[in-house]
């Protein structure tokens, strides 16, 4: 579940960065249209991989329940962190992808 959780968190981080308001808030400039689309696609891919991983590990039914649960939890974490420490929140999202790889290989 850790792998899926990290991937979900990274996915929401991408989605967040795709929004003008937060992109500007953290990186100081507005994202271009192409970058916005790319980030949204990246988010979708990360979620799909997370869901696939957890459904493969725990069976389709329990995996689906876990996947949706982890998605909601990671979104909540991101919003919580974003409100007080936005750079930390998105920095963690960037680290989450290699983190997921490490957790998956361990």
């Amino acid at each position: 579940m850790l792998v899926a959780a990290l991937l979900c968190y990274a996915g929401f981080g991408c989605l967040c960065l795709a929004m003008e308001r937060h992109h500007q808030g953290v990186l100081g400039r507005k994202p271009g249209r192409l970058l916005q689309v790319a980030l949204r696609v990246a988010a979708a891919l990360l979620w799909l991989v997370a869901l696939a991983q957890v459904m493969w590990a725990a069976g389709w039914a329990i995996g689906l329940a876990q996947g949706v649960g982890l998605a909601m939890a990671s979104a909540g974490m991101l919003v919580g962190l974003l409100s007080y420490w936005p750079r930390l929140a998105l920095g963690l999202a960037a680290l989450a992808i290699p983190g997921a790889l490490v957790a998956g290989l361990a």
Partner: protein
Amino acid sequence: MAWLHTWLGLCFGWLLFAIFFTGTLSYFKEELSHWAQPEVPVRAVDTRTALGNAQAYLAQQAAQADTWYIMPPTSRQAALEVMWQAPPGAGSRFISKPLDPASGALVAARDSKGGDFFYRFHYELELNYPFGRWLASAAALVMLIALVSGIITHKKIFKEFFTFRPGKGQRSWLDGHNAVAVLALPFHVMITYSGLVIFMAMLLPVTLMTVYKGEPAGFYQALFPNAFPAPAKGEPGTLVALPDLYDQAQRQWPGARFSRVEVQHPGDQGARVVFYRHGGDRVAYLPGASLAFDGVTGQLIESAIPGDGAMLVAGGFYGLHMGQFAGPVERWLYFVFGLSGTAMVGTGLVLWLTKRQLKHAREARPPFGLRLVATLNLAGMAGLLLAVAGFLTANRLLPVHMVGRAEWEVRVFFLTWLVSLLYAAWRPTRQGWVHQLSVAAVLYAVLPLLGMVTTARGLPQAIAVQDWAIAGVDLTLLGAACMLAWLARKVAVKSATRVAPARVARVAP
């Protein structure tokens, strides 16, 4: 739509807060029950031995009963529980006893409803059958409508996603309300709809009657194929040893857990033994899944797994609501999402009040309606937290062998709530919140200490023997105490630096 959402939310908010909170606690009802009855010994789970001991006890104590119910211990439920129908004229319909699973001896545990009180409360509200269920179901329907109307109102959902601005008064309450609602929206919709599905036969009987042409018995037989045995034959018969049947059941369904063993017509030639599969073996909860054996010969009669198509979907909703399949991580996730739902309702109630308080800020006396809502908000939220603390405190302080102890714990719950209501009526202000939250914080912090003094398994002992159920509850109580203390402080600080009413909040979308 905003109008509908606001008024439905207000009228049913206090009830929904109580239902959500007690429902959230119910995800740990086994742990709470164990905390409430620390005398029950925790043994390594050995279902075979437990069943043998149960059979011996019941053969002695309940030989005349028509049906025996045996609930074997699991990793989350320490006691071996046996139950049988009380003879007519006794107080309740069933007699239930906790046994030591290893020895079969009766455990002298304090009489308490434990976590089951919160579980039953959240769908029956401690009201007579069927009124409590109908009221809770009405609340669930209103909740679902409030969710849909809330979504329609908040059309700019994606533009405002991830936006939470703390510390800005009324705008923060709105952001908080939106955040907890949207972030766990799949959970909220699922839990509300599934709650209705669980009671569907009671709520929409017309459909049931139409399909079954006025005779719905067939419906229950389809759902619970092994629950309706033929009547007893009237000739004596020796009941086969339950542990042997358990071995057979394990051969039929390798690795299965069983939550209940029913012995129908024990001691009769027509005896049957039904093993009910534990709901946690899969996501979908189909309580009729069971193996039926002939009680005298030990032969397998029927293997029933009702569930495909619409039945599986309904079972899926039931299972998602109950969360029996959940392991420790998933269970804590359920708890967090449940709290988020509770917070969603709570922030909504506070939002309703603060918006209108700002409108009437320049008046000397607030209108009666506002004062009423302020009172009910305080009593409904802080009061409920106090009531729960009262219940748990009563469990720790009432004499262990007191008669009617379990009922008294429930009375203390409601008496505490009543005291909170009276105080809230007298002081529905921010100060009242500070007082009630502070008292709650103190009570929650003291509870683990009481456990150390009045039970043999306080927090240090529980950790020492790795009884994580009791330790977990005590630690969570301490955590709750810290949170309540922090909340009380925030409200107190806010009162001291009141924002001038001239700073009118923006109009909500």
